């Protein structure tokens, strides 16, 4: 394989552009005659809207228009999508609250948009938005997850009569109780999986214009591939054909799962551009993203494990409450059920599994997909439970895991929930990580730290996370007459380096030089019709294999053209590394590309051009299974509660690695988000439903000094269910990190009898936990 082919640590093509200020993000785009939209947002967590007075606003300088929810509704705008359906064991459907694009009659969380003010300048729109008078009648609010599920809580959707959207269970609990009763050992945990704000660094933004003559909308916005947003805006908001809506996302400042949604702001900006006939731009600031970007995680879990005399798990029971916010967002209740819940047993061989999920509604920002989308929660829960099992059985933390992991010879392994894990070396992951971390030499280091007054701890965490997302994707390769290739994609790189990796693939598949391959993405007009986007760690698989098969079609057609050029039969032609050969003669793919565009050089019946697509469709229940073991080592200053990560080993099986340089980057970033959740990040609502952590001043984003250098290693086992052998890589870090980190800190604090601390492990919380433990011991 060449220097720029598959598997090489190729430096990124996109970097020079982004390093010199030549990126093009949505806020860099301006349309002629553009107006500015500013949203009026609810300052109340839960209230009736008695009236809205916009008379002063309309009279203010520069104001073009003011719109309320009713205006959109009267124009035929529908409600936002909840793209999930679940039934409980009795067959009863999940409650599905409806959400208007601008709230009508009732607000249910702080930050919910109730109006948009459009003016000539942003300053005018901001000033005029201040003049909108909304008369609210405050209602009792529900700010916390546990409270939302309790019978004392106010009900925020009276028509449902409860804040619990559904009580979903995988099976009757009694079926598992019989197995649990046989257990020699029992272990249990009670966990809080803290709510986090995803916070991509580019705040959300949109600029739209309506072409009245063509009846077409063009909108720039940061997305993870605009196809779903295009379809949603066309169908729900504008009531026009999808191909009359064009969504562009040239450069996007981070995705992490939350960018792929049809947010109310996008719908309102699109609709207002058509209504006013003027381009409309909305530039969200960070304070707005805190109250309008969907949040992540937010679960409370109770789990019980039963083990036999050998430490083998005989039964697992899990109860989860997940706070979905004021409405069920697109994926809301999917995350704790299909997203993560069904993989809770993780890398372990567990036959008897019961789990129950209660998605609750509360007066908070809706939660949706955030890096891992249910899998980090599932893996964290299982790994905390395994630590508890180690304590209960007296086995070491690694031994209890070794006795229960699924072995390679058991694969393909069908889980109790019907998922088929095709491949993975779970024992090997642990061996590799523990060796790299010098686990065996840890006690010596612990003693060394103790001499300096520090408490040292080590922890490990296994994980597996089904990847692949939506089951369809289409990729296209077009060759120019001079033999250069353009990839047209609906997958979207917002940091993942597709411009580089797709070029590596084409160099390998077609022998077209790396520098001669370009990528066109982020535009629904040029993206293949069947494309979806980038989420769920899916692009290497769905996009990579899609490209591989498109390339195969290029070679098939190229073979016919090459045969004609070499005056032989296509069956006599072979292709390798960019050269078509027949006996002693040969032509390059460059020559074939030229001939493909020359009608005189084409064989009969072959259309001009060398331009092929492939629509890849897989079984929706088929995933790939990235997995790994992370080991974290920490030092704790017990007097300050301060934790320092002193070593971090991430062993990942991402299948066949297309570019180790880029995959390492995905691991580092994922780990930082996992460590962020475990160490610094906490979304705090007070009991009135006010968001206390609404800016970077109050919300603990992980900074450079929180992190340590991560040693990322691969234990590559190729995936058996796709042609490239790839597994996802984007979300793995966030799955492995919280469990390893918390395990390490609890290990450091074991002399106090501390077995768990709820995330985030801030200095205050750690210090307080130590004080409480000391006091309890003294008592």
């Amino acid at each position, binding site marked *: 394989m060449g220097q720029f082919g598959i598997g090489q640590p190729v*430096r*990124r093509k*996109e*970097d*020079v*552009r*982004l*390093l*010199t*200020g*030549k*990126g*093009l*993000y949505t*806020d*860099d785009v301006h349309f002629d005659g553009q107006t500015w939209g500013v949203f009026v947002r609810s300052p109340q967590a839960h209230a009736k809207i008695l009236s809205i007075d916009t008379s002063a606003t309309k009279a203010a300088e520069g104001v073009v228009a003011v719109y309320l929810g009713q205006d959109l509704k009267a124009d035929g705008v529908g409600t936002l999508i909840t793209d999930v359906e679940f039934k409980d064991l009795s067959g009863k459907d999940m409650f599905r609250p409806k959400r208007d694009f601008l709230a009508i009659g009732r607000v249910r969380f702080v930050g919910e948009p109730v109006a948009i003010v459009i003016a000539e300048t942003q*300053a005018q729109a901001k000033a005029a938005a201040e003049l909108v008078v909304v008369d609210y009648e405050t209602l009792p609010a529900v700010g916390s997850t546990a409270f939302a599920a309790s019978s004392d809580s106010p009900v925020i959707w009276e028509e449902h009569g409860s804040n619990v959207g559904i009580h979903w269970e995988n099976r009757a609990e009694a079926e598992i109780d019989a197995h649990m009763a046989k257990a020699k050992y029992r272990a249990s945990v009670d966990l809080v999986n803290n709510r986090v704000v995803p*916070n*991509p*660094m*580019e*705040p959300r933004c949109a600029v739209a214009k309506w072409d009245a003559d063509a009846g077409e909308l063009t909108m720039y916005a940061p997305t993870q591939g605009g196809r779903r947003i295009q379809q949603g805006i066309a169908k729900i908001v504008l009531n026009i054909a999808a191909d009359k809506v064009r969504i562009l996302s040239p*450069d*996007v*400042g*981070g*995705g*992490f799962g939350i960018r792929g949604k049809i947010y109310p702001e996008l719908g309102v900006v699109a609709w207002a551009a058509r209504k006013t006939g003027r381009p409309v731009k909305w530039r969200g*600031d*960070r*304070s707005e993203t805190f109250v309008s970007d969907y949040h992540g995680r937010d679960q409370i879990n109770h789990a019980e494990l039963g083990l036999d005399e050998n430490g083998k798990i005989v039964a697992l029971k899990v109860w989860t409450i997940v706070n979905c916010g004021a409405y069920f967002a697109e994926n809301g209740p999917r995350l704790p059920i299909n997203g993560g819940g069904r993989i809770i047993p993780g890398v372990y061989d567990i036959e008897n599994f019961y789990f129950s999920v209660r998605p609750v509604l509360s007066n908070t920002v809706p939660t949706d997909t955030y890096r891992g989308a249910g899998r980090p929660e599932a893996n964290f829960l299982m790994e905390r439970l395994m630590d508890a099992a180690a304590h209960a059985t007296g086995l070491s933390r690694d031994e209890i895991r070794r006795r229960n992991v699924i072995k390679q010879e058991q694969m393909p392994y069908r889980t109790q929930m019907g998922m088929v894990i095709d491949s993975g070396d779970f024992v090997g992951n642990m061996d590799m990580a523990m060796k790299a971390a010098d686990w065996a030499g840890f006690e010596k280091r612990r003693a060394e730290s103790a001499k300096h007054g520090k408490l040292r701890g080590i922890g490990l965490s296994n994980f597996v996370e089904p990847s692949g997302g939506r089951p369809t994707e289409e990729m296209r390769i077009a060759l120019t007459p001079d033999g250069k290739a353009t990839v047209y994609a609906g997958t979207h790189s*917002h*940091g*993942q*380096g597709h411009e580089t990796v797709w070029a590596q693939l084409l160099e390998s598949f077609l022998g077209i030089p790396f520098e001669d391959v370009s990528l066109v993405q982020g535009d629904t007009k040029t993206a293949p019709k069947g494309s979806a986007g980038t989420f769920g760690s899916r692009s290497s698989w769905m996009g990579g294999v899609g490209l591989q098969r498109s390339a195969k079609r290029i070679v098939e057609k190229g073979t016919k053209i090459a045969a004609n050029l070499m005056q032989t039969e296509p069956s006599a032609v072979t292709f390798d590394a960019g050269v078509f050969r027949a006996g002693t003669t040969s032509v390059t793919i460059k020559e074939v590309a030229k001939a493909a565009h020359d009608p005189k050089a084409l064989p009969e019946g072959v259309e001009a051009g060398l331009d092929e697509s492939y629509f890849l469709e897989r079984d929706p229940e088929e995933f790939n299974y990235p997995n790994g073991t992370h080991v974290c080592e920490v030092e704790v200053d017990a007097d300050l509660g301060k934790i320092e990560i002193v070593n971090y080993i991430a062993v990942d099986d991402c299948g066949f690695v297309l570019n180790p*340089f*880029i995959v*390492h*980057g995905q691991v*580092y*970033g*994922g*780990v*930082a*988000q996992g460590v962020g959740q475990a160490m610094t990040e906490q979304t705090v609502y007070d009991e009135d439903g006010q968001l206390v952590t609404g*800016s*970077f*001043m109050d919300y603990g*984003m992980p*900074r*450079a*000094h929180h*992190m340590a*250098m*991560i040693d990322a290693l691969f234990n590559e086992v190729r995936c058996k269910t796709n042609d490239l052998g790839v597994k996802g890589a984007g979300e793995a*870090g966030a799955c492995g990190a919280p469990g390893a980190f918390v395990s390490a800190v609890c290990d450091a604090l074991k002399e106090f009898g501390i077995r768990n601390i709820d995330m985030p492990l801030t200095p205050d919380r750690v210090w307080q936990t130590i004080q409480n433990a000391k006091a309890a011991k003294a008592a």
Partner: protein
Amino acid sequence: MLIEVNMTVNGRAVSGKVEARALLVDFIRDHLRLTGTHVGCDTTQCGCCTVHVDGKAVKSCTMLAVQAKGKNVVTIEGLASADGTLHPVQEAFREHHGLQCGFCTPGMVMMGVDICRRHPNADEKTVRHELEGNICRCTGYQGIVEAIMDASAKMAGGRA
């Protein structure tokens, strides 16, 4: 009331009329249309808007445009040589995968240059501490810290 400001940006004399409350970043982005400088927050926490003012790294969201009157401002667009040769810090970011989505990158690079100037052969602890005012959500900071350490060593070597 609009106020006339003039300053040097990336070696070029520029002027414009701005509102008194306009921030330096507004002038750079909206007036000069130098869109490489980004705005990632509204509380001076993220550092995406970092530029150099008279040779020092400054968050351009935390300075009024009128305060930059007569000063020498360098933005990310002015860092590479005229022939396109990248600054050693830019080159190091590329070599060490110091960027993913690219949004925090201009601020990180401008801060990185400032760190390298003040700390020849900067060690890891220094770089991490110095980056306290710059947030990245993609990279886990690993490539950024490696890049700045590497560039700092190279720039120190170049001066010697």
